[in-house]
């Protein structure tokens, strides 16, 4: 069972949350070349180790936030609001 620390509600059971994927992706500007959109929509680093990801507290406060979680162990290392940086900068 993952105990996920929502920045607003505190640590809660994983069944309250929806996974949102890689949090490091940056949406390109509308006039960006096709290549930039391809990378944004399809390509992922998919790291084995610490992974910065988005979660939605869908059965709670319904807000998105960032989590740093180790994909080898499922250990949750940190969480932060969307407008805050995770400690230690990007993975």
């Amino acid at each position: 069972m993952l105990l996920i620390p929502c920045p607003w509600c505190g640590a809660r059971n994983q069944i309250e949350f929806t996974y949102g994927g890689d949090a490091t992706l940056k949406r390109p500007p509308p006039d960006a070349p096709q290549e930039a959109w391809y990378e944004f929509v399809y390509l992922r680093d998919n790291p084995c180790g610490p992974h910065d990801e988005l979660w939605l507290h869908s059965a709670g406060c319904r807000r998105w936030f960032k989590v740093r979680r180790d994909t080898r162990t499922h250990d949750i290392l940190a969480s932060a609001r969307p407008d805050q940086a995770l400690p230690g900068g990007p993975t």
Partner: protein
Amino acid sequence: MRYSIFSLARNAATHHENWPLAWRSPEPKPAYDAIVVGGGGHGLATAYYLAKEHGISNVAVLEKGWLGGGNTGRNTTIVRSNYHLDPNEHFYEFSLKLWESLSQELNFNVMYSARGVLNLVHSPVDMDAALRRGNAMRLNGIDAEFLSRDEIAAWIPALDTSPSARFPILGGLLQPRGGTVRHDAVAWGYARAADARGVDIIQNCEVTGIRIENGAIAGVDTTRGSIATRKLGIAVAGNSSRLAAMAGIRLPIESHVLQAMVSEPIKPVLDTVVSSGAVHFYISQSDKGELVMGGDLDFYNSYAQRGNLPALEHVVAGCLALFPSFGRLRQLRSWGGIMDMTMDGSPIIAKLPVGGLTMTGGWCYGGFKATPASGWLHAYTMARGEPHPLNAAFTLERFAEGRMIDEKGAGPKPGAH
């Protein structure tokens, strides 16, 4: 040694103490004509077909752990070709045809059991989709039959087919030639057959780097030293992103954990494979008597080869909605495997943008049933430097070109396929 009733009798006379090892465990040579990374079913099949179909037998299979210790040993052994889109139908049907004669091909009993795969239909929408898919299959020469609720009730008494069931059953789409195969035997059979054709199978040998010179493969670095080659095939689904990253390539893949479990063994109760897309659940009974079941991903990136309880609870809930009597069973064990989840739900069997580098991966939930065809087509692509018509659509470039093969129409959400 060829396995037969005579070799069995001969070895019985000596109390089975003199069986030869099924394959050698040689030291890696400094160079090979081709190297396959990954000693699961796909990698071993690739090596076997390189030697058999293309005469390339100076081949090494590098495995970081032991043969079949990854997804080949972690799946639920189901084989079928009941897809909807043409590239998938032709590919998986080619695979199912290889399964049908694989025991004879490898001289190793892989226990292919054509017990049928039945997809349950619970609503008029399900019905339309199942009939459409069944008709698409039949147009492509693949066996598909629609069963009524009464036919299913007579065949599978353990299934709750009453109109008051939580998920009422309106019928089902059956592929009679679908079924199960003994998964470990697939790895061992291909390993033995590849070894007999001169392939070096090297276990406990993890690839740590890929050497590229002038835009082409020059070799690999491993935990057992550097090995030179001009042809490198990656068959490490679950870890494809990590291997591709060693060659500077990003893939349209996320790694997710998928769990499965078995109950304690019981007497025969279920002689087919039953699945329900509405409940997200599938089940079959192994020859040992265990009920083998699974369902959804855990739905977060993972390389951990184990999952969490909410996903298993969902599987059990689906099981009990369809088979109420199974509530008395105890779970014997559960496990997780790491899936390459692609952005359209279909695999990648293709050349990568480095000379001499190919991959077979991106299997999502469907890697086991693809094993023979994946190996056959990956070997073809490695040997010829170009894809076969059966894997021509499964390129890496299709994502940039907008040629997705998206069975579900779920869009670029890896967990949604």
